[in-house]
């Protein structure tokens, strides 16, 4: 059985083929935003519409199969940026109709979790999914990924990237801000926004940017900002671990590439006698493989969507999706 997956929720258009043998191809093209600005949804959508067909062809070629041999096409319908989502969805609908292949809807956030579970062989983890658009602490309970803690405003990756762009570091901002932070010595006090199980980063971001404006040493501001951001997240994760008693901690999403956070979460896991795993770098950021793999699981369990109903859902929450392919 072969499933083609298409991802286009934000800056990446990706395509991948998954079969019983695993991920047999994974091709991605990333829209790189101009220095100093974030993702422009329209510009990213134009990039996707130009790159999409090439990416899909290459994924099929790398997998060594003909499009007629596919059993289904999985498409990431949300959450994400509307214009970007529509490009991938249009491609998927077209292929589905033209080649008479069933269409399988995939939630992008669920896919980040599934690919990490698969790559790290985790059986029942507490998942920390952090990226430019999401900050979610979740675990599977009664057939859905339930949210234990999440951001009340902007995502952790968004906060760090935005901060990086304002202070003028190059892409990838996360890594470059962290590198500056490693050279910092002084810690300034900033708000520490742990709200129950939830976190919030907009106030912390504003406070850190205020320090930049005041002309404080950049390395020190980076250190203070990064330490506060991660302390907040770690505290939330710790509460979730204590509450759920899970013995596996799994980190996934684009921000999982962080150099500093891994070490910190490792300590958190240790203190609660939990194992700790991080999604491999190739599956950390958005990619086609996670959609194809999740689509494969869903398709096997009978999940389908009619083309007429396959609307994109920019605000599709992770806990609205029934997870019927795991037994626990």
């Amino acid at each position: 059985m072969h499933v083609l997956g298409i991802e286009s929720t934000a800056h990446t258009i990706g395509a991948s083929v998954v079969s019983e043998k695993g991920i047999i191809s994974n091709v991605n093209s990333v829209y790189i935003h101009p220095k100093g600005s974030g993702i422009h949804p329209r510009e990213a959508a134009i990039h996707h519409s130009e790159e999409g067909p090439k990416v899909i062809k290459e994924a099929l070629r790398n997998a060594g199969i003909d499009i007629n041999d596919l059993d289904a096409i999985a498409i990431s319908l949300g959450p994400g940026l509307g214009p970007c989502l529509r490009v991938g969805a249009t491609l998927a609908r077209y292929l589905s109709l033209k080649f008479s292949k069933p269409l399988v809807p995939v939630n992008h956030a669920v896919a980040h979790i599934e690919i990490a579970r698969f790559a790290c062989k985790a059986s029942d983890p507490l998942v920390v999914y952090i990226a430019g658009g999401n900050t979610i602490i979740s675990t599977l309970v009664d057939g859905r990924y339930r949210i234990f803690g999440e951001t009340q405003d902007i995502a952790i990756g968004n906060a760090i990237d935005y901060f990086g762009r304002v202070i003028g570091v190059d892409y990838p901002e996360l890594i470059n801000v962290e590198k500056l932070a490693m050279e910092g010595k002084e810690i300034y006090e900033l708000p520490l926004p742990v709200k129950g199980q939830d976190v919030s980063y907009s106030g912390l971001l504003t406070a850190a940017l205020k320090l930049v404006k005041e002309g404080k040493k950049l390395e020190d501001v980076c250190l203070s900002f990064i330490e506060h951001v991660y302390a907040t997240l770690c505290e939330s994760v710790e509460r979730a671990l204590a509450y759920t008693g899970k013995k596996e901690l799994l980190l996934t999403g684009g921000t999982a590439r962080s150099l500093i956070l891994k070490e910190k979460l490792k300590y958190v896991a240790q203190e609660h006698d939990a194992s700790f795993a991080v999604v491999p770098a190739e599956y950390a950021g958005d990619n086609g493989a996670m959609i194809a793999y999740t689509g494969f699981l869903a398709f096997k369990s009978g999940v389908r969507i009619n083309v007429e109903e396959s609307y994109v859902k920019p605000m599709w929450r992770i806990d609205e999706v029934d997870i019927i392919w795991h037994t626990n």
Partner: protein
Amino acid sequence: MAYELIELLSKGAEAEIWKGKWLDLEAVFKVRKSKPWRHPRLDKMILETRTVKEAKIMYDAFNAGIDVPYIFDIDLQRYTIVMEYVRGVTLKNVLNKKEDKVYELCEELGKIAAKLHMRSIVHGDLTPANVIIRENGKLCLIDFGLANFSNRIEDMGVDLHLFLRALESSFALIAEKCFDSFVRGYAIMDGYKAVLEKVKEIRRRGRYVLERRLVAKL
């Protein structure tokens, strides 16, 4: 210093609670723990701020006429609050036995919550395990680790919601009657109805529906 930790009573994510001796008095020591994942300077800042804040809120609650453990000492070198050891049983234990007096106790707790809220203090973890019934029958409120100064209806609502949820998850059969008694006591506060409305709204939010299910499952 006459300072002796004898028995570990409980270990939370944030702090350890020890029973011990302070001077010659029986005392409870709440010791906040360093976290290896925090930058040492940030760690120190957080531990100091939270220790001072908790003590300050307890003192304010005491001034508002609420029975809380008497604070003996605050040791900022060891991030420790030394307080009175309160003898008695928790409300949770009494609820477990389903004695008739539970409704009176819940009404009394409602009054205490109202007094706190009128002083712009929210407890943050208002569960039956955090209420001790002293040997003289008076209710003593403990664990202000998550408490805050706030006059937002939302935060007050969360206090009530947490109490209700704790009742429902562990004492489902008497939960409704207990909460009704609680509300009868809570009604001494002007504007208590707005808080009750908020509780309904909070309960409708998905994430809390989830949390209730989890409590039932764990």
